[in-house]
């Protein structure tokens, strides 16, 4: 009997939570699915979605795939079950999410890619995409090097999480046709990290310094927090005047560029990415045709331009 | 050797030898067992009995010699093959999977032959009924008493249509009552034409129902004769290779005043247990396994939680909430299960001895190695523990020497009250006597001992006073020197009418 009472009590408690959970929902139900909310850019984007959603007529719930591709596709089908009208997603793996998106499209959901975009034939499974172009990000970084070292230079590249789409795109953009290919910039060494982890970037940089020493004139590191580690490694080794280029334009990148430790940060504008996504979804709901891919321009923070921008919120 | 033709023999062991690295465990052992007989094998630990049995059952392979079982020469056998051939063995450490049911255990590894679960249980029921065992075949083995487990083992042996059943010290954890039951079944099996090899330390049993006896010593079969041709002393002399005057030393002589009083311990298994212990006394607990003997001392020692528990030493109440309190109050404990509760087998002799006296050789929480070193050496010497060095793992030592290490561990802090739970279990005759002498010395030095043993002669001959325990209660108090054994037994079995 006591046990039964306990079970009932817990059940009732969960009911309250349940009733609270659904709340009053006059607005359109939308979901933002992030690949990993332990990643600061995505955590920031999630907050921005919740903040700006209502002004575009959406009530946005956020879901976290916790870095697991498998969970990501499960959340998509879960969103179908919950009758969401719109999903925005920033997946870990743009290929692996496709089967789940097929189901979402069949169920009539509006699918918007965020800070990522489907490629080739897969593109038909999303309605729109709002993203910085990571390929372009890599190219922009390459151009900074070419501009700064007109006579060529030897540099090292330190990649983000091995296998992560942004890491792949940035690497390909940097080394590809519109990147350093054909220029005098020579990459001495490229290594990707196991995670987007500062200490791993730092350890790789330390080993690179031992190996190449003063040969290293510049470093392309795929994310600004990684650049923090690179800066520490360079300082500890007494390496000066290193030309460090990072991507993200977050608080770390902003401060490092301002202090001169980092030369350039290719900044992504997540707030405008969020607003654009919401606008596109609103248009699509209203029956308008929307472009398949909207590029959110990246901003280049360097010594001269950085003071024109406010400190980023993330 | 009795003259018998080969066709009368169930098993004929000829010149079997086995060498382990550094030890010649068996040296040209020859034993014949006649069909339908109960053949006893006695010998001290390390005499080679267990090695021989493991060779017969196929766990070990012999180095040389021949074994003919039921007219068939056996070579390179496995446990399963020997069982199928009709040779079953019941080990000292029972051979059952405690997480599985009775029925499944009987047909372990033969699930398919029994046509699944239902078949196993049905057949198991039949077998258990044939030995008058009523236990539910669906019950988990972990819920059974030792004697019931033994019955399950016997049923398992019968399930193979065994022609020969080897019992390796089956009685070591049985009570007298259960032993009587076992004796009955052994006789019953013999009548059915099943031969039995019965290994034991307990000469009473050997004389009670064995037809023939082989004495083993140091890897040799010393002598094989019909039981009737042996005398008790004869057998003991042959076992130890020397004459032992007495099995037991005289009891401690000087018993003083009350040292400890225990008032009304109650636990799940115990009901209002009170008793006193006097200085210089050996107090024996007599009762069936599971009657609550061990539970009483565990509760006194603070190892189990108890209600209404009060221990008075020298008239003053001593709170004992855990073994640490007990140690401080002057208790020492030799636990029931040496390997599980007593020793850390991979650790050195020295560490095992110094375990209890850490406070004596440490200051401000720091160990003083120079003092600790003395402890191991001292106790090893004082108790003449046979070990190459105090640094070898205690697991390498024989049972008797291991037990001495535990005794030595406590002697180091000189406890006033020594609790000994089965102190001579699995220890050979020679070593037993040494333990008895130790007990006597402890008592005569002003200490007191609570002795628990399943070997009735041991308790009766060593104790100044015995308490009988039945179903968690103390049912009687006796002076074993003047009381008839059957009176004490009757009390321990919970009989109201105690025969005069």
């Amino acid at each position, binding site marked *: 009997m006591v046990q039964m009472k306990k079970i009932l009590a817990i059940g009732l408690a969960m*009911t309250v939570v349940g009733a609270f959970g659904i709340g009053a929902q006059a607005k359109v139900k939308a979901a933002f699915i992030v690949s990993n909310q332990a990643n600061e850019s995505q955590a920031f984007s999630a907050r921005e979605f919740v903040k700006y959603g209502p002004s575009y007529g959406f009530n946005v719930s*956020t879901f976290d795939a916790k870095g697991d591709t498998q969970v990501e596709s499960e959340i998509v089908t879960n969103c179908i079950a919950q009758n969401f009208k719109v999903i925005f997603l920033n997946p870990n793996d743009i290929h692996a999410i496709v089967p789940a998106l097929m189901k979402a499209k069949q169920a009539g959901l509006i699918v918007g890619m965020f800070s990522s975009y489907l490629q080739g034939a897969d593109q038909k499974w999303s309605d729109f995409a709002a993203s910085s172009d990571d390929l372009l990000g890599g190219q922009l970084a390459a151009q900074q090097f070419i501009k700064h070292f007109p006579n060529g230079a030897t540099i090292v590249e330190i990649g983000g999480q091995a296998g992560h789409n942004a890491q792949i795109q940035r690497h390909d953009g940097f080394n590809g046709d519109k990147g350093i290919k054909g220029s005098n910039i020579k990459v001495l060494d490229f290594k990707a990290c196991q995670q987007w982890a500062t200490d791993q970037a730092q350890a790789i940089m330390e080993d690179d310094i031992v190996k190449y020493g003063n040969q290293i004139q510049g470093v392309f590191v795929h994310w600004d927090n990684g650049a923090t580690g690179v800066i520490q490694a360079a300082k500890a080794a007494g390496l000066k005047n290193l030309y460090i280029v990072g991507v993200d334009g977050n608080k770390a990148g902003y401060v490092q560029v301002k202090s001169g430790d980092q030369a350039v940060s290719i900044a992504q504008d997540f707030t405008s990415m969020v607003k654009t996504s919401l606008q596109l979804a609103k248009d699509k709901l209203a029956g308008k045709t929307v472009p398949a891919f909207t590029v959110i321009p990246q901003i280049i923070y360097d010594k001269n331009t950085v003071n024109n921008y406010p400190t980023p919120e993330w | 050797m009795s003259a018998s033709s080969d066709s009368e023999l169930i098993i004929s062991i000829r010149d079997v030898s086995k060498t382990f690295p550094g030890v010649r465990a068996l040296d040209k052992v020859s034993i014949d067992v006649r069909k339908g007989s109960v053949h006893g094998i006695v010998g001290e630990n390390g005499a080679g009995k267990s090695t021989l049995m493991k060779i017969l059952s196929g766990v070990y392979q012999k180095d040389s010699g021949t074994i003919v079982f039921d007219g068939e020469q056996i070579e390179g056998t496995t446990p399963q093959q020997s069982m199928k051939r009709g040779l079953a063995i019941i080990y000292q450490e029972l051979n059952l999977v405690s997480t599985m049911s009775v029925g499944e255990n009987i047909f372990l590894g033969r699930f398919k032959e029994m046509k699944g679960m239902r078949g196993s249980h049905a057949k198991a029921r039949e077998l258990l009924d044939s030995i008058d065992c009523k236990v539910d075949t669906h019950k988990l083995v972990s819920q059974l008493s030792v004697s019931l487990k033994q019955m399950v083992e016997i049923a398992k042996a019968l399930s193979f249509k065994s022609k020969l059943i080897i019992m390796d010290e089956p009685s070591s954890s049985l009570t007298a009552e259960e032993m009587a039951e076992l004796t009955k079944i052994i006789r019953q099996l013999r009548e059915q034409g099943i031969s039995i090899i019965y290994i034991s330390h307990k000469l009473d049993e050997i004389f009670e129902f064995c037809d023939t006896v082989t004495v083993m010593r140091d890897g040799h079969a010393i002598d094989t004769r019909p039981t009737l041709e042996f005398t008790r002393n004869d057998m003991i002399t042959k076992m130890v290779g020397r004459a032992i005057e007495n099995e037991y030393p005289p009891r401690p002589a000087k018993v003083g005043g009350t040292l400890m009083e225990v008032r009304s311990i*109650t636990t799940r298994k115990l009901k209002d247990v009170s008793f006193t212990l006097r200085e210089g006394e050996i107090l024996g607990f007599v009762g069936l396994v599971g009657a609550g003997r061990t539970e009483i001392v565990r509760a006194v020692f603070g190892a189990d939680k108890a209600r209404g528990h009060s221990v008075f030493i020298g008239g003053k109440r001593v709170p004992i909430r855990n073994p640490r309190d007990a140690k401080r109050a002057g208790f020492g404990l030799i636990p029931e299960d040496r390997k599980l509760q007593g020793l850390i087998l991979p650790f050195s002799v020295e560490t095992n001895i110094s375990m209890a006296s850490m406070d004596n050789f440490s200051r401000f929480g720091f160990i003083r190695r120079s003092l600790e070193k003395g402890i191991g050496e001292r106790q090893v010497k004082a108790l003449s523990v046979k070990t190459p060095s105090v640094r070898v793992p205690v697991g390498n030592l024989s049972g008797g020497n291991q037990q001495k290490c535990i005794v030595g561990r406590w002697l180091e802090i000189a406890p006033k009250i020594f609790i000994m739970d089965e102190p001579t279990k699995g220890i050979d005759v020679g070593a037993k006597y040494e333990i008895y002498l130790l007990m006597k010395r402890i008592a005569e030095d002003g200490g007191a001992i609570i002795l628990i043993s399943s070997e009735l002669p041991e308790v009766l001959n060593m104790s100044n006073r015995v308490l009988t325990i039945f179903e968690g209660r103390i049912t009687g108090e006796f002076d074993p020197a003047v009381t008839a054994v059957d009176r004490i037994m009757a009390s321990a079995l919970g009989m109201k009418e105690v025969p005069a």
Partner: protein
Amino acid sequence: MVLTLRSNPLVGILTKQKALPFILVMLVGMLFSKTRFYTPYNLLDMLNSSSILLILAFGVTLTIVAGGCDLSIGGILVVSGILSIKLQPVMGMWPAILCAIVFGLLIGFVNGFLVVHQKTEPFIITLGMGLLLTGVAQQLTDAHPLPSQISDFMMISNGTFYGLPNLVIITLVLFLLSAWLMRYTQFGRNLYAIGGDYEVARYSGINVIRTKWLAFVLSGGTAAFAGFLLSSKLNTGSAIYGDLTALVVNCGVVVGGTSFAGGIGGIPQSALGLLAFGMLDNVMNMLDITSYIQILLKGAVIVAIIWLDSFAQKRKREAI
């Protein structure tokens, strides 16, 4: 009261199936919530989502019942998933899948060799093996996700059969098969005997080495099978799917009531353990609980279930 409770078969089931009370609480609780939890779509989706982990758990249960454990399944999962796609252009779809499964069996064989034959600590050696395989997966793909080019491949996991998702059907079949294997075959009962008491099983003439070894081989094979299904479900093979999978699955199996000590538990328990995790995820998403709180709750639930189980055992031990 105590007696009636003990003899009550329902209580018996609840004590054996440790995750069941928890599942019941969720099911009852959700009755009162105004979410779309009780829709056929969601219930099937929940099963569908849990299927990969369930299949992994079936294999792992064999090793845990036999007194081992297998933490290399995460590595096997990713490598076999990648193989089943990478080999497609070379040999066609079905042979590629077969190769992937054979690979899993092989790794299981090596695990079995190390754990059973060489008597290495299973926990640590399979952990190392999982790490090794993660590296192999990255090397195989150059850390790029590898999409399948054959459209039929995707339909294996994503198709339906009379409205039932294929994955759910496959899981059900594997559930019945493995439950039968554990309960009604000589091999299964031998596993229980080995986990219950290794030496006794050996003396009883059970070929302990071969049987336990086979458990590891099957666990590897099941993990590889799950790996190919996962690749089909996502239509992609990648090195980053299996990071925490091994721990979560082993944990789910234990939460279900299959003891790490061996010899206790079984497939139904493991299934409920993993299902409880899947349901918890689903319920938390339904109730719109935010990500960090979800993580917190999940950790708390794992601690709570194992705590309650240990506590019940402690109470039993110490009852006065």
